[in-house]
């Protein structure tokens, strides 16, 4: 069965069963491997993408449930890798191993889209579903604050 998707502003037609999790369509069919498989049960956030501007765990989102909502992955967050969050992430050298970071950045993008100037408490609440085993949480919070100051208003669409 063919399913129509709009991923990073590009129309895609994928031939998979509607119950297939979006993550595996992104990674295995569309070869967008920035979104990561980790827990597979929506508890770690490594697979986070934006669906209609909201942070969603793609590992447990059936691809057939999306309708025509636009999907944004880390690869499509900005055309040039210069989204304020990506710039801040690099400036503060946030990642260590990096495996969770695409999910972290996508959750942060959703946060800033709805709350352009979050408090630390709002950041902690919004990011609490994204785990980082390296423990980069303090730099993540700093980077979100920095991005909020430097022009977070850029919509992540």
């Amino acid at each position, binding site marked *: 069965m063919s399913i129509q998707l709009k991923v990073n502003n590009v129309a895609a037609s994928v031939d998979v069963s509607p*119950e*297939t*999790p979006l*993550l*595996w369509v992104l*990674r*295995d069919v569309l*070869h*967008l*491997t*920035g*979104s*990561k*498989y*980790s*827990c*597979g*049960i929506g*508890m*770690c956030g490594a697979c986070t993408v934006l669906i209609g501007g909201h942070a969603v765990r793609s*590992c*447990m989102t*059936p691809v057939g449930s999306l309708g025509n909502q636009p999907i944004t*992955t*880390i*690869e499509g967050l900005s055309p040039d*890798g210069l989204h304020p*969050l*990506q710039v801040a*992430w*690099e400036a503060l*050298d*946030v*990642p*260590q*191993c*990096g*495996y969770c*970071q*695409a999910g972290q*950045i996508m959750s942060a993008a959703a946060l800033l889209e709805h709350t352009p100037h979050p408090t630390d408490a709002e950041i902690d609440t919004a990011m609490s579903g994204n785990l980082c085993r*390296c423990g980069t949480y303090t730099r993540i919070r700093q980077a979100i604050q920095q991005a909020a100051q430097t022009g977070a208003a850029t919509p992540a669409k």
Partner: protein
Amino acid sequence: MKINRRSFLQMSALAGGGFALSLHCPRLAAAQAPTTPSDLTPQAFIHIASNGVVTIMARASESGQGMRNMLPMLIAEELDVEWKDVRVQQAELNEKVYGRQFSGGSANTPQGWEPMRRVGAAGRQMLITAAAQTWAVPEAECTTQPGRVIHAASGRSAGYGELAARAAALPAPALSSVKLKDPKDYRIIGHSQPGVDTHAIVTGKPLFGIDVELPGMLYASIEKAPVFAGKVKSANLEQIRKLPSVRHVLIIDGGITPAALTPWPTPGGRHSRPANNSRLTGISARQPRKAPKDSRLKRLNCSKPRPHPPCANTAMWTQRSRHRRRS
């Protein structure tokens, strides 16, 4: 495409004229030479293009502690180049050529500290020799500044890129013979450098083992028996074999392991299946009659912390731990 060291060398050569220090690698590999730190050679680790861009091999894998920065930084320091001119490339797995390539136990810095610096210093020495031969001056009169060999007496200097081809034709000096910098002169070591992979990470580039695709690759994972330390009595193997992408399914100690063309719905994505999908859960198992001697059961029952799980199983282990805590 798969890049092994030989094809990397060929590509480098095709890319145009400049490559140098890695010329001797294939012969080295064929000779099955080095196994001890003193046998490492700069040719294996350093590649200098004619435009002066330096590629340094990171011999150990990255798992978040900065190995892909640290090990090349040690070489770059003694080679005497600007860190911004350095590109880091992962070395293929060949401990005869690269020495210890395992990452773990906080051992890479102490074990790489001197050998990697000596590799860099030997590379610098070869470039000095090449310059001295070119100018017909004594090596002792030549010094380096980052990326250049200088002969102050005659006012001559040459970039490493210009000297690389000649340097590559020289025999490597014994690592024990090269002189190391005084630590007070360090320009790279001891100075924080940005992560070499940070840009790739924040833009979602393929970087991790799970991102690798090879022709004909299958995805395998383990479906454990539903009771702890259980042995498989039976499993719905025939049913699993009929799934569209599945190529093999095997009974292993304590579970089954399907291998499939796609990561879902079997390996890798096995946890992602809808809760009511029992396609992969048809394992019936029997409890072991007594605790296995290998003490895994004892560890669970005592209050000591469990040992760190092997990396490959981390995701599964984490999930299983959560289930246990909940129940």
